[in-house]
């Protein structure tokens, strides 16, 4: 039996009296793509923020590759192989696309406490960054300042940053949000290609994308996991159909 890449045990988060994550337990196996769906306000982003270390859970524990990371800050979790994208595009606007990615490469390529020598002249960093940009078909925009990229290109850049970290687990918070149909298709294609290389936790509203990509799906409502299983099983679950999927899948 292989160890899960990510394990959540009884995760719980309260904001004041409001329970936004309610006893969530979850395992993600290596190479698996696990999708989380649920209506707005179900607590999906809050869950991702807890896994990536930006929010402290009120109770429960988080394991990465068997190690308890519940108390670790975000940067330590990233060092352990956790990468994430943000729902609201979160790139460095005044860095070029290449430098955005090179910064992620740099984090895994030796010490960054180097004070002398131009970082943007380091061929090895740039080559790896370029490779990641190629994977998301953004290589020809490498020198463009991130602020000047289109929305879809920024989404792709987010993905390239995450790829450059060579993650063991990638958290994707609505990667398709706000993209047009064509750009969405392209991103699905990219994710399809990446599948199997590392485990992924995908939060997404686009049901077509979710059912095309996911190995397993968990349905989150009011911070609680309503159902969890292979796509076909979840699709057929009467609880899910009444609570959430009904109107969208007809």
């Amino acid at each position: 039996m292989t160890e899960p890449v990510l394990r959540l045990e009884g995760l719980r988060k309260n904001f004041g009296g409001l329970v936004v994550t309610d006893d969530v337990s979850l395992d993600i196996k290596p190479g698996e793509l696990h999708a989380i769906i649920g209506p707005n306000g179900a607590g999906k982003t809050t869950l991702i923020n807890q896994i990536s270390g930006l929010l402290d859970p009120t109770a429960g524990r988080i394991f990465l590759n068997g190690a308890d990371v519940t108390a670790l800050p975000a940067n330590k979790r990233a060092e352990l192989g956790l990468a994430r994208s943000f729902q609201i595009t979160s790139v460095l606007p005044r860095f070029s696309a290449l430098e955005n990615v090179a910064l992620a490469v740099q984090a895994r390529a030796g010490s960054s406490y180097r004070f002398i020598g131009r970082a943007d002249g380091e061929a090895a960093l740039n080559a790896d960054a370029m490779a990641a940009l190629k994977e998301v078909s953004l290589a020809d925009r490498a020198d463009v300042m991130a602020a000047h990229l289109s929305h879809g290109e920024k989404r792709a850049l987010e993905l390239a940053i995450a790829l450059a970290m060579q993650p063991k687990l990638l958290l994707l918070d609505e990667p398709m949000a706000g993209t047009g149909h064509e750009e969405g298709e392209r991103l699905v294609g990219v994710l399809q290609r990446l599948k199997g290389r590392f485990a992924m936790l995908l939060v997404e509203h686009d049901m077509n994308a979710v059912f095309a990509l996911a190995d397993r799906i968990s349905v989150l409502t009011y911070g609680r996991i309503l159902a969890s299983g292979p796509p076909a099983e979840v699709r057929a679950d009467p609880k899910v159909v009444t609570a959430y999927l009904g109107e969208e899948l007809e």
Partner: protein
Amino acid sequence: MTTLVHTPARTGLSAIRVEAVPVLIFLVLALVPIAAAFGPETYWLGLFTRVMVFAIAALALDFICGYGGLVSFGHAAFVGIGAYAVGILGAHGVTDLLISLPVALGVSALFAFLTGTVCLRTKSVYFIMITLAFGQMIYFVAGSLAPYGGDDGLTVRARSTLLGLPLFANDRVFYYIVLGSLLGSYMLCRAFVVSRFGRVFRGARENATRIATIGYDVFRYQRIAYVIAGAIGGLSGFLLANATEFVSPAYMSWQRSGELIIMVLFGGIGTLHGAIVGAAAYLLLEDTLAGVTEHWKLIFGPMLVLIVLFARGGLLGLGESLRRKLFPGRSDP
């Protein structure tokens, strides 16, 4: 935006123009003593020595503020600590710079480390207020040092020496030593900004959360930068005490910290060499206005307001927008 980074793919002309400004600045500074020989020499030498001393401190402030987004309102504290190191050691008969310089740099770096540990846990306006408060703390502490002059300050009996050699005694030699220190600080900050470390530091200003989720401990990078800026501020203070042969709590008053910010803003924030231009502009303006009326702050205060409201990007920014108006075809993308 005139910055020496983010211009990887730019070619030829504009790249050269960006480099030409700092070269020109240092050339002019190197020639000042020669020009001064034809006028009231001590006056000009003294004024430009002051300009360069403050430029060193402003440079360090621009490093953390312009590239890291850390608006420190207590930067004069480091200048004051550097100056007091010279003053207090001098009062005990220690004038050798092999002792006083490391002490000046070390104590200001230590102060930066300790206060940075607290300040850098907070953000934006908290950071401004807390650095201001710590600056005020050291100001009051200096004022309460009765054995070292208290509020009145104390006279530095002799400029620093090197192994007994009165290296700083000649004003002209001292001028070039200050120029060398400025050039050194400038080159150092420049190197830091474009280095691996600098890239993380700059990134944290753009989006600290992103930098953390990539795997960097933002706090540590910012604290290192803060300590570097503090030490360079200490260097400025070390030179200031030697230039004025006097130290006083006024060196670290909050108005001084404000003036340093103004210098950075005057020259155009986030350019490094802009801080030098800003320091020169501020001190020359102060000198000129003060020559016109003792109430020069009545003119200078509203001027600051107008600059903020109408001239964003400082003097160099003003030059840049002028250039764009004159040569619209060559403007940056």
